[in-house]
């Protein structure tokens, strides 16, 4: 007889559904276990009634400018190219204000504001689902630290990601798929996998990255010259060898048994994952809706559609990283092209979720790691029309999952430099998002390094204005 600790630790690998009948009893016993040593991926009830069950987080790496997307600043436009004496940020030398190159308008019944580059998101069917939060404040001015902060609650990196906490708290519906899936562009965002780390939580809470090219999960497919039948025979023969070994022991060892069952789960994942990521199963109309037929939207469109399929298949948390928002210069060109590449797919995602009745319990978040400054410095003697990093103001969108649809929450000052109304640190945002998922940040803790740790680090407040 081996230890409880090891048994559970082993059993809940990436999933706990076991093929073998002999192990079924063990599973049900363990699925109920909630003690720290046995955190599993089995579905767990929320701590309080949840508004959202799943999360799709669209991460705009680099930091979109609030005043160039959803937070119009006419006063700033008037100051265009006049000297700025603002002292925040890292830029030095002669600084001048930069008005947004884009025009703004109110859209939908709710009158959400967005710049004219957003064409598809402006459709009232979609726009009226959005909640624009203008009160969030980051802390770090540097990309990796700010990314870590938004993703893991800590600027230092190494703590569990939001997705890991959510999966730890709620488990996941489909034991043949990872509970937390991450999609990136070809290049990883700054800070890499630390952004979807399990931190000190057990490893099965780590975000599993579906790779944009090649095998969606590393080594998922057998070597090319080995067929599915070949794999089946290999697993059967291995099971024989392993069971002969088990029989040679006088005392049963469940961690060894559980490891055998992992091979069966792997075999099923090999079958299921390619199916979920196979977008050819979607109609041409759907693919087109997501912009998969156009160069500028096909990458993000593919990922958004994949996100919907994953959530549909029972994945708890999906995160997509889309870079290129770090517009220090050529703001108009840069932001315009980034907006165009995400606008249609995002709108399609919200529309699609809504049409399928999935939006009400799927929380969609669109955010960067921080916002941008209203001013910039001259570079090489020329007015470089871009913006620096701003940790005092930013903008984000929330939709579905119990958020207050069609609303604008909080405000920045007239230049968009500081959040001045409903200003909240990132930890409050995290606490609120967990709250929507039916999780209490103060109770969703894990003992590590001598204390109980939590996503918000030391606690935070729910932002009631964001909740419907």
């Amino acid at each position: 007889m081996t230890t409880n600790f090891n048994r559970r630790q082993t059993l809940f690998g990436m999933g706990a559904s076991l093929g073998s009948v002999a192990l079924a009893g063990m599973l049900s016993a363990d699925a109920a276990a909630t003690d720290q040593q046995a955190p599993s991926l089995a579905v767990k009830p929320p701590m309080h009634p949840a508004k959202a069950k799943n999360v799709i987080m669209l991460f705009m790496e680099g930091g979109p400018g609030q005043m160039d997307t959803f937070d119009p600043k006419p006063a700033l436009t008037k100051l265009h190219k006049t000297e700025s004496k603002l002292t925040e940020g890292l830029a030095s030398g002669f600084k001048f204000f930069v008005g947004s190159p884009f025009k703004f308008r109110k859209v939908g019944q709710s009158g959400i504001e967005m710049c004219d580059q957003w064409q598809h998101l402006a459709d009232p069917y979609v726009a009226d689902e959005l909640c624009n939060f203008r009160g969030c404040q980051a802390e770090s001015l540097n990309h990796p630290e700010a990314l870590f902060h938004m993703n893991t609650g800590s600027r230092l990196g190494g703590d569990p990601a939001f997705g890991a906490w959510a999966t730890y708290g709620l488990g996941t519906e489909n034991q043949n798929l990872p509970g937390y899936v991450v999609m990136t562009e070809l290049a990883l965002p700054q800070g890499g996998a630390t952004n979807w780390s399990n931190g000190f939580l057990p490893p099965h809470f780590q975000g599993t990255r579906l790779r944009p090219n090649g095998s969606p999960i590393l080594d998922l497919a057998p070597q090319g010259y080995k067929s599915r039948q070949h794999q089946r025979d290999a697993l059967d023969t291995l099971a024989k060898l392993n069971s002969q070994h088990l029989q040679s022991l006088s005392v049963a060892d469940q961690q060894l048994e559980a490891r055998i069952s992992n091979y069966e789960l792997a075999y099923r994942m090999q079958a299921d994952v390619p199916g979920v990521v196979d977008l050819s199963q979607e109609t041409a109309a759907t693919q087109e809706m997501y912009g998969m037929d156009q160069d500028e939207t096909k990458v993000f469109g593919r990922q958004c559609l994949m996100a919907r399929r994953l959530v549909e298949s029972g994945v708890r948390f999906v995160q997509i990283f889309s870079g290129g928002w770090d517009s220090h210069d050529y703001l108009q060109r840069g932001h315009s092209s980034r907006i165009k590449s995400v606008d249609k797919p995002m709108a399609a995602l919200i529309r699609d979720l809504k049409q399928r009745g999935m939006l009400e319990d799927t929380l969609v978040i669109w955010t960067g790691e921080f916002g941008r400054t209203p001013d910039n410095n001259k570079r090489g003697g020329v007015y470089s029309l871009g913006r620096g990093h701003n940790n005092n103001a930013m903008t984000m969108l929330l939709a579905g999952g119990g958020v207050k649809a069609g609303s604008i929450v909080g405000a920045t000052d007239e230049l968009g430099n500081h959040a001045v109304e409903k200003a909240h640190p990132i930890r409050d945002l995290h606490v609120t998002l967990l709250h929507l998922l039916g999780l209490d940040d103060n109770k969703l803790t894990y003992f590590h390094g001598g204390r109980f740790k939590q996503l918000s680090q030391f606690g935070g407040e729910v932002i009631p204005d964001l909740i419907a």
Partner: protein
Amino acid sequence: MTELMGGTRFYRRWLLAMLCVVTGWTIQASAQQQQQPTTADNWTKEHRSADADRLFTLKVLPLLTEKCFGCHGSDPDDIKGEYLMLDRASLLRGGESDEVAVHPGKAAKGTLLEAIRWDGLEMPPKENDRLSDQQIQWVELWIAAGAPWPDKATQEAIRKQDQKSQETADGILIKTSGGTSDQWSSRRYQADKVWAFQPVRPASELLPKGVDAAQAIDHFIDRRLQEANLTPAPPAKPAALLRRACLDLTGLPPTDEQRKQFITAWEQDSQQAWENLIDQLLASPRYGERWGRHWLDVTRYADTGGMSNDYERSNLWRYRDYVIRSFNEDRPYNEFIVQQLAGDELADESVAKRLQKELGNKATAQKIQQRVRQAQQTGQYTAQEAEWIVASGFLRLGPWDNAMVKADEARQMYLDDLVNITGQTFLSTTMRCCKCHDHKFDPIPTRDYYRMYSAFSTTQMAERTVPFTDKENLTGIESGRAHVQRMLDYATSKKNALINKQETAAKQWYKEHDLPYVGLNQRKSMPDESKPPRHVGLDYVDQGRLKVREQDVWIWNRRLERYQPMAQSVFSDAWVKIPGNAARKLRIVRNGDGKVRQNHILMGGALTALGDVVTPGVLSAIGLPVQSALTAPANDNFQISDNAQGRRLELARWIANPENALTTRSIVNRIWQYHFGRGLAANSNNFGVSGSAPTHPELLDFLADDFIAGDWKIKRLHRRMMLSEAYQRSAEASDPDQVANVDPDNLLLSHFQRRRLSAEEIRDSALMASGELVHQLGGLPVSPEINMEVALQPRMIQFSLAPAYQPSRTPAERNRRSIYAYQVRGQADPFMELFNLPNPNESSEQRESAAVTPQVFSLMNSDMMTDRSIALALRAGQHSDQVGQQITQAFQWVLGRTPSSTEHATLEQYVQRMTRYHQSMPEDSVNRREYPKQITRSLVEEFSGKPFQYTEILPVFNDYVADQSASDVGPQVRALADACLLLLNTNEFMYVD
């Protein structure tokens, strides 16, 4: 409740009784009172109030401070729920609800008790902060007694009185350098919770007569087994013991030769055979490669610095080899400590001594300092001094980069890291908690944190010139340098071409503006109007490429340092200013004024919130004074001299003092953990109150004491542990049902704890079974072949993409033991990561060994494992041309035994089926693996937001010697390899019994 009990008189009696029961006090207001009968009637008003005052001062107020004031008092601008609790009137009044919080004398009323009982309101709001029943009772009693709030002087008097007794029913006092409040300094601890801060009891006290040191382990282990009515498992079989010992001590399974030798010897004299085996394994160079890795887990070894740029720390491999060598040479642990924490200062001392010897009386302080500093620049060191400086690489292991970070914050980040890692590594103490406040649970005031911080505050990072020694393996320096030089030349030529293009345009600009040409560097600081625009002549593609190439030049220049006689180290100076991109180049520069800066407690960890001034010092709670000739501080012997030079050395010597109970318990506990799967105290980085208490405290003390008696020698400790019966038990419990009921986690060690192989053991064992493993002690980092998708995938660094991962060119270079693999913080080998190689950003006290499904993908499908299976099949093919014998042989190599007839039949039939399968496949069904000689990268140019491309060369693949793979062999070898792959996937291979 009080009403029900009927009247005040009864209630007073009840209250008094409860005060005694609940708090466990002896009422000691005065001797006279104690003599009186303890009925409430005999109590005067003063007596009661004195007692309630004591309750408030010693219990309730500290509780409120810890649990409530954070939100309801400390920050006057942010009072939660408008409820202030800092004084009696406010506390009674209540908060925004307008309901009265406390009715003095009436515990049944008021919202405070409701809230702390989580009856309606839930306070404190965090589950983990919830008050215990006992704590709630204190508050209840206090309210019932009228909620008195004595003035400061009375509180002080009560605390003073209490402090006169070292031990009361409330626990023991621990004297420290002092907390930020009297309350904290005077609090009491439960003795068994602060076990780690108590002195180690000597073996003579711990061992009963007739039990000698050699029997001590079994004495302590068996005693607890008997108490738990557990029968120890019988001894393991010799084959299991052999594999266990080999893997534990060397990280490799036994060879056939070792097996034959051991079994023969065992049959003659099992005890002698076992002892000889242990000695042989400890003498093997493979031992240091295994145990060095444990140490690197704790100290967080990596070859790069992490964070935004992940620049290489090009010479840290020398520290890695120092660690391996230290284990192999059985360096006494106290020396190991001092060398890592202050090796550079040891070298300075030694240089000074050499000069004194040379010059005698003429060696003035000035001359000595001159010589010491000269040596620091030129690297004129003896081999011993060189080794010490390399050892101080310990102080350069944390992730650090100051790009885009303010100078003082970057400095703080470094010093915090040193304090934390020193606490965890050597003292098994988590210091991080007391960066912001006095420790909540442990007797460590924030003052001690900043004293240690101050001890490091003159530590300055630098890459230093340090000669190679004869002990270091310099193989591959020439070829390695040539490769890096080639990468550098490529980047430089690309960069120069772009600069030339720019400067041609610049010259044109000057010509057009009728101005004389000014070079790029000179014109940087000139006004905008008088020079061409930045990046003149370059379009966005050029600009993007220029940034990449400039970064590459830095990266490859840095990597060239690998081959230089340099060391990642430190030096001592009061203060220096470092550049803003110090992670890519940092040499010894003494640009400060030499004036020692004062250190303060930083309140809440904030650089701007200066608290008391602190001097350098050590942890005061264990009561071990600093013993140093350099200093004689008045009335506080936990302080260190505040010279810029020598602070660390003093700190290190205090840590390495044989009387330092934290240090000695820490190391013996770690060694125990790696042998038995779990430390006697399970959190080997945290001996504090929040860590696990030891299962066998006396054994832990015995081992610590015995370790000092054995001159801090670790090999002797291995022998002690491995010669015990406890270590040699079978992995199968004698009475599994009893174990499941009484000791399901095997804390009492009734049987050996079966363990999964570590990532390194899996890879190294597979390479050994396939005959590919190449042994070579130490040397430059090697680059094994990792998953090619990961090797070539783009990886963002601050302004660019990091260069692709290029494996070492030949199998002999690549297929070395895993400890020599190049460790990049931003790019882990996915295979090793999957099998729980720890993230080097955090100290790893123990490896995880969870079995997760993706491990199956790697073990069954990866190129890495497939290649091993092919090599193993080829090796078996060389051994025999009979499939049956090939299977037997492969089985023997992987699992160390002969297959049973059933196993053999299973595999033989499988190979037959697979042979037919592969024969039925077309000739070209196996693709040859591609190794691209160059790749095209895409990146978005920062200013324009437009994508551009550039070419990266991978010259290692120009004349790459690949491992044998499936495309190189025929159907029969592939079929046999399929069987070999299964063997490498078996539980028997993956676990140690």
